[in-house]
């Protein structure tokens, strides 16, 4: 029952009076075994939920850091099935929920039904699809629900209130707020307060839904969001993987320490 455990992860963080921490790394970056090792280190370092990128070459929502990670994984020969393998191996030894973040063509080419079956087999709890907006995603999100997988709807600063209401109405119990108009990995160009205001609006319209905040969050800004439900850090970690590889250091260890730092900053 994956969507249940996912929701519980948010509730557990809330009980401890803190926001949940999510990390994003690309599955298979830089290869299968190190990617799994990275997940293990992240898990040890206090993450609440892991977002795993199922990389796509035409990743039009992503900035440089995630493009580099994706390129490394894909050019290393990582396929969709490899990413499922990594998640399954991780889940066999961990209770931490895993969400897949990907693009529609990856799901479409794999086959929607088969994709969801694989998600269940490898114990994936949720799916975020960058380029599959509401309402085009409704049929698929229903299929997710039937498979106990949370389809996570995306919201952004220019989603007007009418649309916000409609999306929230159709959304499962977790949604994602894109903090600013940008691709991933750009500098935060709006104030934390503005983001929190929008977050509060979402919570007002739909109090029981958990809302992840993402895009542009780094160790420097994460503390601003401690009173929200959850935040995700992605590009900073992908950049750390790139740096570690360039310096021939162990990316898993370095990503792990960065996650510990993020967790500390989030709660301090």
């Amino acid at each position, binding site marked *: 029952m994956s969507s249940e455990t996912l929701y519980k992860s948010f509730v557990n963080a809330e009980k401890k009076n803190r926001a949940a921490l999510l990390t994003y790394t690309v599955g298979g970056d830089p290869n299968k075994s190190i990617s799994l090792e990275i997940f293990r280190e992240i898990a040890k370092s206090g993450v609440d939920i892991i977002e795993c990128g199922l990389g*796509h*070459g*035409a*990743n*039009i*929502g*992503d*900035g440089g850091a995630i*493009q580099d990670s994706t*390129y490394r994984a*894909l050019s290393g020969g990582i*396929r*969709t099935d490899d990413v499922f393998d990594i998640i399954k191996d991780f889940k066999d030894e961990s209770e931490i929920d895993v969400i897949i973040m990907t*693009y*529609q*063509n*990856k*799901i*479409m*080419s*794999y086959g929607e039904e088969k994709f969801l079956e694989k998600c269940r087999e490898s114990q994936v709890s949720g799916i975020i699809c*960058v*380029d*599959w*907006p*509401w*309402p*085009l995603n409704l049929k698929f999100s229903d299929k997710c629900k039937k498979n106990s997988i949370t389809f996570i709807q*995306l*919201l*952004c*600063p*220019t*989603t*007007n209130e009418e*649309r916000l209401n409609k999306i929230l109405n159709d959304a499962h119990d977790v949604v994602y707020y*894109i903090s600013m*108009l*940008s*691709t991933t990995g*750009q500098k935060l160009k709006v104030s934390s307060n503005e983001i929190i205001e929008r977050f509060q609006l979402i919570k007002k319209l739909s109090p029981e839904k958990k809302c992840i905040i993402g895009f542009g969050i780094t160790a420097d800004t994460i503390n601003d969001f401690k009173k929200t439900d959850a935040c995700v850090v992605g590009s900073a970690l992908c950049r750390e993987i790139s740096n570690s590889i360039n310096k021939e250091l162990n990316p898993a260890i370095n990503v792990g320490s960065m996650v510990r730092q993020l967790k500390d900053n989030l709660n301090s």
Partner: protein
Amino acid sequence: MIQLQKGVPLIDQHDENGYWGGKFGGNQIAESLNHPIEELENEFEKLRQDDTFIKERDYYFKNFIGAPTPFIKLENLTKYLGGAQIYCKLVSKATGGAHKAYNAVVHSLICRRLGKTYIGGDTGAGYAGKMLSMAAAKFNLKCKIFMGAKDIERQSINVFSMRSYGADIVPVNSGSQTLVDAVSECMRWWTSENEDSHMCVGSTVGPTIFVKICAWSTAQISREMKKQVIDEFGEVPKDMKLINCVGGGSSAAGFWNEWIDYDNVELIGVEAGGPEGSKKHAAPLTNDSPLGVLHGATQYVIQDNDGEIEETESISAGLDYPGVSPLHCFLKEAGRARYTSATDEEAIEAFQLVSKNEGFVSPSLEPSHAFAEAIKIAPTLSKDTIIVVDSCGDSAKDSKIIAERLGYKI
């Protein structure tokens, strides 16, 4: 089988979600683009009905782009091939040298109406970028052009023009460093900058509204040609074939637009077959590529079985694109148009044959693909058949590539 509706413009034959034939097109975009796309949809629907806007468009089409472009008979080529009568719509005479001028002018006018001061666009062959920078200079817009590093190298003549017009050229080094990556990067830019900036997609690809605006703009080609055809023949010929190259498909969509309802007019699209004997090509319709999502729209796209877009190869930068317009997917599925491909070698041969025979017509490598098909079929047809080829680009930009192929220095 999917049916076309008669009497309804092709660009309006989509459903409420933006799909033609229930599955081609759409808006598969990040949520951050939903608002600017809605804003653009509303503005475009308003402007289409606005007489002053239409007058403005026509003014620039006539006085700046030089409409109508010539419609001429290729007497020598017809005699040489001995079969169908071959005509040419010389769209390369449009200011700047290609059909991309229409879309660029319309987007720049829309950009101004939206009160935005910055415009960005993608380019492959460099014509879309050249025309957009040209129009941006005229309309006092700041302009950014995204172009693959490989294309910057092979289409340097058009890059020179863009620089002269003051555009900021952003080289794209990711992936295959061609048009597909340029469009991706342009969409990323717009995702961040859409509050003050407008995006011009250089062909009939991308989210539905961009397909519509582009085809609405290039429709000028067939609007003016219809008059020219009737002037020439006194009526619409009983047996007429319109041949056009298809990359993204903007030139073909415009060349065919007014003829869709004429069942006696055959529409033939020619994609890039790539080097002879190579498995790489840029011909998703000809080779029955699977349906996929690329740049915000569902279309036939060259991809592997893991959904990864595959590299394409063509001597012609303008046709070197793995996807194709949802409009052409729709026309193919409805059986209205026929699609085929020509190889690099056939295009080069066609370029030579046309240039040598006709002088006034010197097609760039993109329309040379269309001429290659005309050359193939003309001898098998009777003199009562009229073939019209859209010569939508001028060879000047390709002089380096062609000279190298033919073994001489320029």
